[in-house]
Every structure is written in C-alpha cells, then in structure tokens.
C-alpha cells in the first residue's frame, strides 16, 4: 500500500466523533459606523497610511506629493505598464502602484490579486507599496471579505496590511523586514 493510502486508512480508523460544521454566519460580528476611519486609524500602527482621494485628485498626484523623488515606479493600475520577463525584474522598483479588490476595516488589510501572476514578486520586492481600492469596497470583517473574493482564479492572492515588519530583535517593532518598507492605501 502506498504511504498515501496507508495514512488515509489509519486516519479513517482513528478519527474521533465530531460536531457538525457550525454556521459561521449565524453569529453577529463587529460592524463599524465609519469603516474608513477604522481602517485609517489601524493602518497607522501597521506602518501604513490611508487616504481618501479628493474630487478631481489623481492617484499619481497623491503619490507624487508623498514621495517627490519617486525613482522607478511601476503602475499596474494603468492599462499599459512595464513588461517583466522574470519575477526578478522588479528588484529595483521603488514604488509599485497596484489595484486592490477590497479592504477590511477591522484589520486594515487589502486583498491583492492579479490576473497576470508574473507581477506577484512586485508586491514584495518594491520599496513602497501603493494599493488603490474603490471606496465602496470597504467591508467590516474578514468574514465579509472572504464572501467576496474568488480565490482560485488567479492562483495567488494576499491580504496585505501595512508594511513588512518584524519584532524579532528584543520585541522592538521595525518596519521593512523583507517586503515593502512603507504602504499607502488610496481609496478612489
């Protein structure tokens, strides 16, 4: 018998009784009167910042005001963007502007997933990550978020909350462990 079949047979033999699956929607979860305020307040502690785009303002303007000397910028929200041949091509990107499908008020996370998976490394190699989310795509909790995302379709997706960080040295919080050193979420 293969390891697989032997393992499954043994698990089957040993498995205990258990309850039925609970209905996770039967329980009321927290809601926020002002989802943007909750999101923006949280992300500050997570090494990020959130802004609401003003009338007539563009994403490019917000980014330029925040980082006047941008360096290499890759903007995936545009139809036309730089070509990559290997995932390593993004190693010198300073600012990546990427579309986010939705944002979560309870933890300041943004769901990022792109049909062209060659861009996957960009989110983590860039120095600064800008996530652009439609303002009506702000939900209360992760439960609502998972109700809205189609996870399999692109092969990879991530919730990203703020910037890469670590506290592995004496519990001191340091921004910029391996991924982006700064994160900016723009609701448009």
């Amino acid at each position, binding site marked *: 018998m*293969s*390891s*697989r079949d*032997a*393992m*499954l*047979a*043994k*698990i089957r033999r*040993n*498995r*205990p*009784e*258990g*309850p*039925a*699956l*609970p209905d*996770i929607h039967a*329980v*009321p979860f*927290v809601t926020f009167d002002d989802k943007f305020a909750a999101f923006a307040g949280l992300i500050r502690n*997570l090494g990020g910042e959130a802004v609401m785009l003003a009338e007539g303002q563009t994403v490019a303007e917000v980014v330029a005001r925040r980082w006047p000397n941008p360096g290499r910028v890759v903007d995936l929200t545009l139809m036309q963007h730089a070509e990559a041949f290997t*995932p*390593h091509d993004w190693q010198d990107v300073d600012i990546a502007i990427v579309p986010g499908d939705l944002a*979560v008020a*309870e933890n300041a*996370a943004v769901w990022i997933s792109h049909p062209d*998976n060659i861009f*996957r*490394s960009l989110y*983590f190699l860039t120095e600064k990550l800008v996530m652009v989310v439609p303002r009506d795509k702000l939900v209360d*909790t*992760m*439960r609502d*978020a998972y*109700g809205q995302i189609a*996870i*399999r379709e692109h*092969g*990879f*997706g*991530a*919730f*990203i909350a*703020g910037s*890469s*960080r*670590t*506290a*592995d*040295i*004496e*519990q*001191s919080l*340091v921004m*910029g*462990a*391996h*991924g982006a050193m700064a994160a900016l979420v723009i609701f448009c």
Partner: protein
Amino acid sequence: MKPENLYHPDAAREFLADGARARWHDQAIWFVRQKRDAQAQQLPEWEELRKLAEQIKAHTLSRLDEYLVQFEENARHNGVTVHFAADAAEHNRIVHQLLAARQVKKLVKSKSMLTEECGLNPYLEERGIEVIDTDLGERIVQLRHEPPSHIVMPAIHLKKEQISELFHAELGTEAGNNDPTYLTHAARANLRQHFLTADAGLTGVNFAVAETGGVVVCTNEGNADLGTALPPLHIASMGIEKIIPRLEHLGVFTRLLARSAIGSPVTTYTSHFHRARPGGEMHIVVVDNGRSDILGNPDFYASLRCIRCGACMNTCPVYRRSSGHSYSYIIPGPIGSTLGPSRDIRKHGSMAFACTTCGSCSNVCPVKINLHEQLILQRKRAFDAGTLKPAKKMGLLAMRFLTRHPALLDTAGKAMRKVVPILPAFVKDGTAWSRPGRELPEMPEHSFKELYRRRQEDKQ
C-alpha cells in the same frame, strides 16, 4: 535540534541562574500576552469566534481523511502536486528528491516548525544543499546553531547585544551597534540576496483549504512571499491537521491567529497559494509523523486543533520563567507539553510537570484546547511509564498515600506547621522550596480545614 535527555527542571534552573535575563524574558512575553488581551477585548464576538474555531476544527478532525482527499483532488485540479509522507524520514526524502531532480543548490525557507520537527535542515545540508532560514528570528537561531525557543518568536530568548555580536561575526555589521532597526535592515539586505539567487522556496502552511485545494501562509515579514514568488519551485510542508473545510472558514481563523499570537489585528501578509508562479511548479507535502496516533487517543486528540499561535506559551507562568530551550520537545510551553509526551512519554515526560495547572493556557487558546487537563493526564502517563526521577516519584507516592488517608494528612499537616518554623535555616535551605529567589512560606497557625470549620460554626 534539541539536546537528548533534556530534563525540564534542570534546564530551567540553568536559565534562572541569570536572574536579570529571566526577569526580562518573563516581562517581554507577558507584554505580548497583554497585547493579545487588548485585541480580544476589541471584538465583542471574541468568545463566539473561539467557539466557532473549536467546532470547525473538531468537525474537520472527525472527517479528516475525507477532507484530505478533497484537498488533494482540488490541488491537483489547480496543477499542484500533493505528496503524502508517513513520517519525518519520508518527508525529508520527498523534499530532497524534488530538489535534487531540479539541481537545486540553495533553498530559502520560511518558518516552519514542521521542518524543524522533521530535522530537514541537517538532512539537506548533509546532501550538499544550502538551506537559508529567512524569518529574521529563525535566521538568528540558525546562525547560532540552536533551535527556536518559541514557535512564533524564535529568538525571544536573546538580547539585542547578543544578536549584534552574532551579526558582526556573520554579516559584518558594525561592532557594538545594537540598534534593532540597523540590525534588521542589515539582515534584510543579506537575505534579499539569498531570495534573488535561490533555486527553490519552502514554506510551512497555516491553513489548507479542502474546498479550494490551496494553502494559506501568514507572515509579518513577507519572507514566504519572496521565497515563493522568485524561485521556480515552491514546496509547502504541512501536517495533516492543517486542513479546514471551506474558504469561508478563513474568515474565522485569520481573525483569531495574529490577535492570539502577537496581539496584532492581522499579519501583514496573509497569502493564498493555489498555483505556482508562471513558469514554476508547486508541490505540497502532507505529513503524518505521529499525528494519526494522537488522533486515535480520546484523551489527547483535541491537541490536533492547535493553530500554533503561541498564546498558551505567552501566558504560561512556567514557560515565561524557564524559556523554550528548557523543554525537551521542539514545541515548548503548554501545547508542546502535551504534544511531546503524546509522541514519546519516556523522552518528554518531564514536560508534563512544567505546569502549575493554573489553566491560563486553556483560557487563551483560540481553539479552546483543554491544555491543562491534558497535562494532568500526561503526568499520569509519565508516572505509569516510570519516567520520573526517584525523588519526584517518592513525593508523589507519599502525597497519594496521604490524600487517601485524610486523618494522616491532617496529622502530617499539623506536624509540619509546628516543626518547619523551628527548623534551623540550613535544613530548610536544602529543600526544593528554598532556592535563591524563593523561600518557604510562613507556616500558618491553623489548617484550612480548621479555619473552615470555625467559620461554619460562627455562621450558625
């Protein structure tokens, strides 16, 4: 790897010899526990969430074989290869074969307690493959050639001065520069070169979703992401218990994990891997290594609900004062103290006694594992298996004898209350109760029973 025959009381005594460091360790970890409490208080549904998580996991264990098959089918449908490994040796063999067939010279690894459990690093290194742990804390302990002391904060036992010295020697950082930001960024620059030049990436798995055939990995650093987006080969290693039935259940577990673990509302990156990057391939190794035995044990199978948040160790008064290195199993603290003895009672029996039975671990556990009750049962097994040192065994036998003979217990208690206060200091100093930093308590004049009886009489 942990040293053989580690005996918790001895190893803890060694750790406590440096009082200042022990106090610091206790406080640093208690701070994380407090952050966890603050997060829990912010969600009115916290207790409901724990209940849902418990039920989902308990249900999954009751159909584990079915969910594993469903997971395998869906993963295959996504173009991912699933392998099954009965034990550590098979896991290591599978990983090595995958790497060898693709001439992998360098593997970047994201924190995975499972590969630590399997002893993967030395296995691969003996076969000429360079293994780089990429989680900062994990990298630190790798460079020091020691095991992690905590499952979420692997280097929590170290002071920044020690890390500064290590990085000076290993990475050429400035001598005496102890600034955590400076040190972290030096490690970042060094590890980025490894990410860019690695031929394969290996990650652990936080959750595996049967319904979609994908795995979820949670990190704050983004190391799992760089390690899988750059090299062409991604191997994910998971224990059989990581399965959850549906995608929507992530809406329960991702809310509990980081809050319980580090007191943060979520990890920076909660990444969902369902296919390899373009031009790459993805493999998942599903590992048993003793888990199905625990599954068949009615006293202990609930320990398989664990999501490895570490909250139980952060709250444990014994863990905080003895550090992860004093536990003989690779996973320390309350959860390790039931998992370890479940695997090998002879080797890990002493861990079951590293517990005050205060129950704090069971109270914080996001999947409501009855940890302290399991530890009591593990003690019984340790006793029955004859793993106790003679003094401890005699003490327990005497206690059992006394508790079965109440009149004798009363007399013994009375004698103790009379005799201990007049004992000369040198006799008292020799007991387990009067090590440096702790003294025998003052003996009360009356026993609890006497006080209770008097109160009842007063009431009448």
